[in-house]
Every structure is written in C-alpha cells, then in structure tokens.
C-alpha cells in the first residue's frame, strides 16, 4: 500500500519550489514514503534566516504570492511533521555553498549523497523540479 516517492528539487523559482512542496506534502500525508533531495539553486532557500523571496518564472508565480498560497517552506515542514517525509540537503551543494548542518533549517536531515538518493529512488515514482 505504501509507495515510495522521490522528489529532486534543483530550481530556485517559486513555481517549481511550490509544486515540489505540494507533491511532497500531499504525497507524504497520503501514506507514501517521501524523500526530498535539495540541490543546486533550491538549497539556499533552506538556509536559516534566508529571507530572499524566490523569483517568479511567470504570471502564476506572482499570483501565488498575491493570493497567499501556503508558503512552500511551510508545506515542506508539514510534509515532515504530518507525513514523516524525509528532506535532505545534497552533500555536494552543502560543500559548494559552504553550509554546515547548523546553517540550514532544522527540519532537514543530514546531507545526503547522490549515490544513496539514487539507490533509495530505484523503486517508486521520481519527480524533479
């Protein structure tokens, strides 16, 4: 009954972060085993105290902000708290940005390598944003 959903997030635009957070949160609260891997331009938004808003790609991104859709950060946190999702920062991106574990938001797990993520993702659905 439980399915595995692996979500790779590499983009730093609001539309993609929002959709990734929606898939992760709804997937996690619907009985799926969800793993999220944060890398490339997505990771800096998960730095503690980061307050730069994610830029919009188009009209929808602007509307998400104007209409007060649930913020993606809150949805990712709900995925962990309500659905036991696991969210990991990519170890390579952590190194490139020079982040330590203490620098990122507390609901992230330990940095994860691509080998492990790909191994875990070898069964089930894989989504990338």
């Amino acid at each position, binding site marked *: 009954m439980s399915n595995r959903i692996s979500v790779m997030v590499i983009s730093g635009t609001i539309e993609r972060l929002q959709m990734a957070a*929606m898939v992760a*949160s*709804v997937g996690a*609260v619907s*009985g799926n085993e969800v793993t999220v891997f944060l890398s490339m331009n997505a990771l800096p938004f998960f730095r503690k105290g980061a307050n730069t808003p994610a830029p919009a790609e188009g009209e929808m991104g602007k509307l998400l902000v104007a209409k007060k*859709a*649930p913020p993606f950060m809150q949805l990712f946190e*709900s995925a962990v708290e*309500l659905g036991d999702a696991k969210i990991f920062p990519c170890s390579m991106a952590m190194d490139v940005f020079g982040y330590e574990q203490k620098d990122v938001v507390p609901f992230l797990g330990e940095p994860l390598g691509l080998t492990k993520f790909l191994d875990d993702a070898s069964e089930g659905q894989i989504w990338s944003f």
Partner: protein
Amino acid sequence: MANRRLVDARGSFCPGPLMELIAAMKMAEVGDEIEILSTDKGSATDIPEWIHKVKHEHMGTQEKEGVWHVLVKKTH
C-alpha cells in the same frame, strides 16, 4: 458521544485546507467528526479523495454560498 470540530480554512489555497484538516485529524480521537470549510473548489474535490485513500469516513460535502463544507469522521 462524538465530538465535532470546525476547521475554518476559507481563503486558503490547495493544499492548505487539506493540511489544516490533517493537522486537526492528528489531534482528534477515533470517532470524532471534523467539518472543514474551504473556498477553494479544488480542495473540495481533493479532500474526499484523501479521505478515501487513507480510509477515514467521508460523511458528505455541501456547498453553501461559495463555501464548501466537507464532513469527515476519524475511523482509525
């Protein structure tokens, strides 16, 4: 006697109302009923899908003046 709780998620967009419902379900006892209010039409159809998927009881959905009322009973 079952408790009934109201969750007012009017004005919130998908999946906000679903997340608010699930947070309330976690706090509720088995047998309790939760009525969720949503102005988001997508949530009005998606919430019953979630209820069926995780095997709680969908007791009905009604629209009153642009607000959807979804009633669910916690069964496990």
